[in-house]
């Protein structure tokens, strides 16, 4: 804060001088289901720039590289420090957070251009903004919560060993960003269209149903393992495993392990998947014989 003077990039002197300006190619789409088109913008390079600040400059400028008037590109963000998960998009072909995508690093790979696209697995709302309702619906489906009795004071929670805290904590950092889903070859896009005369509620219900049929995704599987490990959460472990063995459950995973490779929080998703595999195996067999 405080000073607005520009500073020099003594920290970045290992590479040759970055260009004074660069092109940003954005895949835009005006409405859901509409056709998409590329638009090019020229942006002046500044120190410590990330893709968010690039989009901010584009919004302020509202002009394409050819000098034509245009509307600001729509995108989603909040924290700007990679903890809220809002700003996920496809940057230079790879899904990631726009706020932690540093321009100077991107320009090392390709000095001419930065390419921005919306995620491909979620319905586009507009430009770089997508609807991740399905992702949150999956958390409902797998009951990703601790079913406490209530919120009155009942003393402290169960004792937890440092070791299990160390196992739980990484899983609990999932910020529902959707990277793992975007990169997963088994997670395919579900986009419904509101029918004419269909009420918003009916449409939502139809969406939910369709989402429930689709693959829940690595994030939700991992959340199941998080809650099933918690001493209180374990009391409902079976319900969550039921969800994981229902349609769209863990069986849809094809073990490509892209999820774990792209997760910005480095959550051991494939370990969760393996553990969930074991738990569901045991659960289903037990259920069969306990019937």
């Amino acid at each position, binding site marked *: 804060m405080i000073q607005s003077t520009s500073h020099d990039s003594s920290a970045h002197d290992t590479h040759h001088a970055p260009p004074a300006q660069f092109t940003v190619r954005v895949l835009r789409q005006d409405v859901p289901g509409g056709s998409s088109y590329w638009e090019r913008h020229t942006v002046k390079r500044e120190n410590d720039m990330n893709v968010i600040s690039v989009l901010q400059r584009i919004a302020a400028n509202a002009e394409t590289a050819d000098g034509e008037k245009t509307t600001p590109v729509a995108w989603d963000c909040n924290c700007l420090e990679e903890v809220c998960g809002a700003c996920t998009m496809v940057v230079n072909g790879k899904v990631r957070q726009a706020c932690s995508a540093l321009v100077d690093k991107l320009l090392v790979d390709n000095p001419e251009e930065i390419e921005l696209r919306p995620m491909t697995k979620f319905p586009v709302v507009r430009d770089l903004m997508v609807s991740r309702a399905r992702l949150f619906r999956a958390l409902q489906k797998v009951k990703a919560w601790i079913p406490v009795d209530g919120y009155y004071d009942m003393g402290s929670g169960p004792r937890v060993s440092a070791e299990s805290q160390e196992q739980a904590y990484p899983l609990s950092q999932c910020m529902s960003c959707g990277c793992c889903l975007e990169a997963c*070859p*088994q997670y*395919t*896009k*579900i986009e419904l269209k509101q029918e004419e005369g269909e009420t918003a509620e009916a449409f939502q219900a139809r969406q939910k149903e369709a989402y429930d049929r689709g693959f829940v995704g690595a994030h939700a599987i991992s959340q199941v393992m998080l809650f099933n490990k918690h001493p209180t959460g374990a009391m409902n472990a079976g319900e969550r495993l039921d969800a994981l063995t229902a349609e*769209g459950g863990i069986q849809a995973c094809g*073990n*490509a*392990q892209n999820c774990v490779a792209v997760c910005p929080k480095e959550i051991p998703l494939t370990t969760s998947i393996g553990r969930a595999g074991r738990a569901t*195996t045991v659960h289903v067999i037990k259920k069969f014989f306990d019937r």
Partner: protein
Amino acid sequence: MQGPRIISVEANSASFFSRNEFLIRRLHSLTGLVPVGAYMCIHLITNASTLGGAPMFQKNVDLIHSLGPALPIVEWSFIFLPLIFHAVVGVAIIRSGNPNLSSYHYVGNVRYVLQRATAWIALAFIAWHVFHMHGWFHNEWWLENVANEDLGGHRFDPKHAASTAALALEAPIRKLAYFIGVVSCVFHFANGLWTMGITWGVWTTAAAQKRANWICGAVGIVMTVVGLSALVGVAKTDVVAAQAYEDTKLQMKQEEEQRVAAENKRLSSLTAEERLAERKAREANH
């Protein structure tokens, strides 16, 4: 860009597959190992015995065929049906995915794609292989009119195991096809073993998965060597000599069979007293 895949709810509303998705997927996984995978290993080991020469191979083949009339039942229930199940579900699985190797060049992703590519190869290869060797159906008309020499079907004769196998794979193109087929199937099996361990929760942590990777890799390499040694085996087979041996063996076998048949016939024509007398005489001889 991948185009949107719009799933219509009505279309697949609670189909049998979707209701039993978990069970079907686990059965698919299981059939990959047993019986299909296990059979493949036995089959490749048997084939490798061509290296040991025509007699050894013939002996192994005979062992399998000693099941006689039970063989088709065993083959269908333990090999073909599970394989067809695995293949049909496998195709459905492949179609449910959306590979994205061009964007994400991770080893896991490469293997995911290879698993599917080798599945297609295995499908084509196994179909061709079974046609090529057995002609698919053991129906007279079919064997004469479709799976005949012109179309290259039904080339394997279990009674002339080494020689017909060698002849069938004589053309380099066939050897190449066999090579690709076997390598693909083995990769598919070994990599499948590894994914199976995750699917069923045998290896869970990254470290365990790495260790399992070594084991599955070793299985893959061993099975590749075993599978390919059959190629060497058939290449080394002297068809004429093998045929001669097989013919002699077959002739001996036939003679023996005839002898046994004649003997049986003779025995059955005797009266009970005569048979008793004969046995006594034999015992006295001992």
